[in-house]
């Protein structure tokens, strides 16, 4: 293991209410040379410790005592837009995962992922690459389809380009970025950019909707 060789260790915060899991994840991350700057068992703890810990990546369980993972994601992304949130969920319930991604999470893994998969995911998320599972790609595809099926007037629906849809579809079919790049004759980086753009558009749409809601309901005035 070539640990502590990296010049800048990735600062990670682990949020999970299950002590065994929290310890296991913390242990794995620390052993791989990452810097676990904070752990938290509840949403409240997470929000309290986040500002001082200033992690680059937050590894977050969705099912935690209130506020839940989705609310925590929204709040910490609001406080620090550069933070990356990697969702680590046991049940991976569709609605929750989608909500978390819309709130600003850039990665999602099921807890049965192996140690290596987790480490790779944390490193990639830290670099700003979204970590998509085929399941998440399917959800995001479905969400864009739903938005174009029932457009809310005036909300300026974000749509995917044909290429983005194609790439996302391939991710949902389980192809790796390398395989997609090969099949579409694109560079690995371009494929990643396409995937990143889709998440960006989804989160943008969410922000637009929230803002619209706030304006309509007079929440923008103090």
């Amino acid at each position, binding site marked *: 293991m070539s640990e502590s060789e990296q010049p800048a260790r990735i600062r990670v915060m682990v949020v999970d209410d299950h002590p065994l899991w929290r310890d296991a994840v913390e242990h794995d991350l620390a052993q791989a040379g990452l810097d676990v700057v904070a752990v938290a068992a509840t949403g409240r703890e997470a929000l309290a410790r986040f500002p001082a810990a200033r992690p680059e990546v937050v590894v977050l369980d969705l099912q935690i005592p209130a506020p839940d993972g989705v609310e925590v994601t929204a709040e910490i992304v609001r406080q620090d837009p550069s933070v990356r949130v990697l969702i680590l969920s046991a049940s*991976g319930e569709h609605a929750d995962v989608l909500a978390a991604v819309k709130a600003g999470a850039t990665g999602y893994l099921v807890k*049965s992922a*192996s140690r290596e998969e987790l480490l790779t995911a944390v490193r990639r998320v830290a670099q700003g690459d979204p970590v998509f599972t085929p399941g998440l790609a399917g959800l995001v595809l479905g*969400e864009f389809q739903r938005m174009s099926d029932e457009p809310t007037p005036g909300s300026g629906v974000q749509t995917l380009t044909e290429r983005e849809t194609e790439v996302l579809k391939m991710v949902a079919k389980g192809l790796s970025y390398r395989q997609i790049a090969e099949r579409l004759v694109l560079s690995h980086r371009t494929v990643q950019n396409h995937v990143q753009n889709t998440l960006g558009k989804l989160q943008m749409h969410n922000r637009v909707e929230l803002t619209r809601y706030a304006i309509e309901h007079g929440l923008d005035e103090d």
Partner: protein
Amino acid sequence: MSSWTSPASIAIKDRLFRALAVLRWVVLLNAVVLNVIRADEFERPALGATCVVVMIGWTVFTTWAYDDRRRRTSPLLVADLAIALAMLLATPAVKGTDYTSSVPGFWVMGALFAWAIHYRLVGGLVAGLLLAAADLQRQHVDASDYGNAFLLVIGGPIVGYMCDSLQRMATERDVAEREAAMAAERARLARAVHDGVLQVLALVQRRGHELGGEAAELGRLAGEQERELRGLIHAQEAVTVVGHAESVDLVAELARLEHGQNVTVATPGSPVELPAATARELVAVARACLDNVRVHVGDDAPAWVLLQAFPDRVELSVRDDGPGISAGRLEEAARQGRLGVAESIRGRIADLGGTAELATGSFGTEWEFVVPRTSPI
């Protein structure tokens, strides 16, 4: 729960009796005014005045008495009906045998409806019959007298029947609401339990894998159960959403394919409703494709299922990472008269009015099915 004792039906009764109290005052006012106008018909004015006073007093009393559910007992209802009957039967004594309008008139409605509300259809019928019989004691029964009596006899049971229905519906709605609340609470608890179990299974799988040896076998078993449970939860997530018995949520059906082997199912986040037969056939086709993957690529070969839903169609794809099908093998098989799995899959999709495409190459083998949504809901 019985609709006679349920809190919802008693609440309905409270409302009905409050409404009846208002009605009693309206018909009392009507009776008093009519008696004052027709006071010259009285042969015994003192007795007539007494009757009017009794009606006023009784209306005051019943307004108070029926207001509390504990006072609504059989003696009260019997007394209520007895007073109304007495008013009718006293009429010959007040006005002589040859009268055209009874002393209480429409005031008897109060007792009739009280019986209909309290004893429902049977109560309404009994009270209606007795009041009609008492009213027809008069010497000359003309068409309008007969009509009034007839209205009493059919009005009582009708109102009684409607009260019965109202109370039953309220009781049923109450039960349904309670069941919905219980189901929601159960689902909430189940989420917590499932999540806990999944966490532990995933942890065992992970640690077991790292420890190796016998622990790895335990880890593998835990992993299988973890996938199975997660698939079931996804399937269950959508169950409550589907309203039609004849339509099925394809997302939930496909989620079931996830357990056991290395199958990953990607779907939209919301239910995709299709006619049950179409959905089952699609799942069966997907299963056949996955079986094929197991036969041709390997037992543990990973496979991916993707469902996309559009307003007019659904697209389903099943992909594996295997070596692909060598060129001409399918045609060769067909020439030899072995139609095989591929043709049976094509046929089944064609029966659904859809198209099936098979792509194969270095990326593996990929089936893509497009099936129209005949009855989009």
